[in-house]
């Protein structure tokens, strides 16, 4: 029943070539074929955000994309963002503020938050809450998540103001 196609993509900065079933979701491909289990599957219908990945620089739902659609794309996962150190400050803030409990939502939350931070724009708590609305967390009640993002954003903006590098 399965048809397969060959795809090649850039995954966390490295080239990957695989033959994938045409119906396989990108997040399932990453988890089962490549062992990148940091991305999670919470609903498989695009609501919860647990599967959030970065595709060509933008946050995307890994359960709403097929692996074949990632052909030729650059895909980044929580593993890649961790190794590059890009969100080390955000991750540290999450730990310090206890902005996660079970942690199942957390990789997706971090990737969405990374996009927020990447804009380099000041945001108040209400705006942070609105931006993060596509990532459900059943454990924390969100306040600590907002606190951690707010603190990281403020620190980055302050750093940017003192070095003039645009906040990234």
């Amino acid at each position, binding site marked *: *029943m*399965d048809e397969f196609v060959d795809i090649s993509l850039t995954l966390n900065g490295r080239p990957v070539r695989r033959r994938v*079933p045409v*119906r*396989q979701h990108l997040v399932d491909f990453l*988890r*089962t074929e490549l062992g*990148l*289990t*940091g*991305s*999670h*599957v*919470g*609903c*498989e*219908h695009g*609501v*919860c955000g*647990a599967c959030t990945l970065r595709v060509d620089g933008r946050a995307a739902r890994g359960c709403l994309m097929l692996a074949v659609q990632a052909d030729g794309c650059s895909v980044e*996962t*929580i*593993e890649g963002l*961790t190794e590059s150190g890009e969100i080390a400050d955000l*991750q540290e803030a*999450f*730990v*310090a*503020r*206890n902005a*996660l*409990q*079970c*942690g*199942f*939502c*957390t*990789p997706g939350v*971090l990737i969405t938050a990374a996009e927020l931070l990447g804009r380099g724009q000041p945001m108040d*708590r*209400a705006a*942070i*809450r*609105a931006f*993060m*609305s596509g*990532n*459900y*967390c*059943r*454990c*924390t*009640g*969100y*306040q*600590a*998540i*907002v606190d951690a993002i707010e603190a990281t954003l403020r620190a980055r903006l302050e750093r940017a103001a003192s070095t003039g590098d645009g906040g990234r």
Partner: protein
Amino acid sequence: MPEGGMDRPLPIGVREPRARARRLVAGRGRYTDDISLPRMLHVAFLRSPYAHARIRSIDVAAAAAAPGVEAVFTGRDIAAACNPWQGNHALFPDLDSPPQYPLAIEIARWQGEAVAAVVAETRAQAEDALALIEIDWEELPAVVDPEAALVPGAPKIHPDRPSNLALEFTTAKGDVDDAFARAAHVIEETFVFGRHTGVTLEPRTIIAEFDPTEERLVVHQSHQAPHQQQDLYARLLGIPEHKVRVICPDVGGAFGVKLQFYADEAAVAVIARLLGRPVKFVADRFEAFAADIHARDHRITARLGVDAEGRIVALDVDDLFAIGPYSQYPRASVTEGGHIARLTGAPYRLPAYRARVRMVYQNKGLIGHYRAVGQPIACAVAERLIDGAAAKIGLDPVEIRRRNYLRDEDFPYTSPTGVAFEHLSLNRCLDLLVEKLDLPALRAEQQALRAKGIYRGIGIASFVELTGPGPDYYGQGQVRVSSQDGCIVKLEPSGKVRVVASATDQGQGTDTAIAQVVAAGLGVRTADVHVLLGDSEVCPYGGGAYASRGASIGCEIAFRAARQLKGNVLKVAGALLQMPPDALDIRDGAIVDAEKGVERLTLADIGRVGYFQQYLLPPDLQPELAVVQHYVPRDQAYIAGNGIQASYVELDPETGFVKLLRHAVVHDCGLIINPLLLDEQIRGGVVQGIGGALFEEVVYGSDGQMLSATMADYIVPMSSEMPDIDVWHVEAGIGREKLGAKGVGEAGTAGAMGAVLNAVNDALLPFGARIAQTPCTPQRILRAIREARARGTTQSH
């Protein structure tokens, strides 16, 4: 207050982040679905499309021949290898829930009940093959509404039971009818509490592996109680218990959903045994909504009688509780109704009290034990009525509570339903709330805005919660659920510390809290303690996580074990230094002279001598550098905690939308072990309670078809809708001989719904409208306003 909180040694009371959190933010979590075993197969279930239907015939031949399929099983195939179970409880001997099997055999009794299983090389192939199973269904009348279920002549869900009434029980104290007859005012309300479910972000997941050469079953499972599961797999599958091992890796949220024994998961274990290969099942989100336990679903008529000054003279509660087609195993579905009967009005002096609970079978999903089990309802019912009484008499909601609270002189107290409360700090919590929130100012703001056509409401709700149950409830209930926990604390030769405990963690931070109390008890730093939880083979026997027991029982025993180890270490140190052990102490990992604090030895010295150089010790001194202790609270049935919550909302009378402006909690959890983790436990619980008050509802059609089986239909709170939540604490002491932590995991959920319900009703006051149904959806709020307008009760405003 001394640094360590209630005079306890550091690092008790310190805001330490969790070691596990570091791993999880890096994407290095290891949840059950992240595990893959050699030769592992995948299971998919065919689930009943009907709420109630007979399986006339079932043909699996085509499915069995589909690509990648290893085997297909029907209910009969699986039942042959698994004993059935009944969700009964000996404290309620009239409850006689019929036997339940892993897969439905003849009749499916709720939409989503598993009826057949396909096992294939991939999940996708297993799902493909499901479509090839042919079932000849005979649809039976669905019994959905609990009132209709009790009407004589209603179709019976279990033909061999006298009716759809699963259980009825009443508890009463005092002459209730007489008290009502003499009450100055009687406030009556009929409540409808909608059905909720836990929506753990990680759905239920299990991998079962059976090795026929050793006859050993190893189960990796996203679960809260590995020992409970070990016991069940052993008994139901007939495998000696020492050959069953249940491992709970990282768990992606649990909230009671993962405390249960599920029919489909039993089938997975059976399949693993029949095939001799590892088998994985991951519930997808539809399956989670259909087959995870649900909760709440109560219709309650309650009456409160007060005298002219607003003092309670009587409370009467009548609960109709719809539990699905079976009582949930192993704990029995009775707990929620039981807690409602036990706890409604618990913060108050109740001269006369009566509660009746009727549990009804119906063709919906099963009701289990979701966070705060019944307590949010007990709270909401009493707090609505007491606000109603205040409004009737013209008293302030704060004042009427003060007049009725149990007071310091009442303790120790036994409630009308026989529950002992050692001490509650109701007035202290209320005082702190009034002060911190500046309630008078908030009221003034509300009134001022009302004149401008802005409708805000303030609601407060006091609650009493029963945490860390002792052995009475389940023990006397003949339910094999452990109320005790155990803990091993072991000194490694290097002087570092390992802990293995029966408590489990699903994100609460129980492992960190245990590390902290062990560090405090022994005299080391938290970073020098490693805690392992969640493995039925290596951990001491215990209950895992339920009823807010991680801090109150899990940490209590860890602290005791650490102190015992400290005594053992000091014995060795004393022998080496030729000093009496009590002249020594352990501080920051060093053995010091207790008086001057001068370092004499390190823990590594003790480890070296204790494990490698025992010849340096007197011949009669055997170093015991690992200790195991167990603990079950025996002095009371529950550790009672209490608190109060406040909600401040704004209502849009045109759309019915409720905006949460602010939420506050004052909680008494006894000793605070880690304020950072504690506050987030409360906030997370509050948001689940708010979800139940405003958004969340498992909706079924009148035919028993679930209408809310996606996350777009069952609405859990999003970040944009939630307010910031203030959390304040009252640390009321309990006896010096104990560590003194009370439960905390359910406090947020227990009080939030009542506070929000009162706030919404306060905002509705100018319209003369009331709402007594959860969730308070915009539609229901608009209907309440419309009905009030029709009655002409709108106050001038």
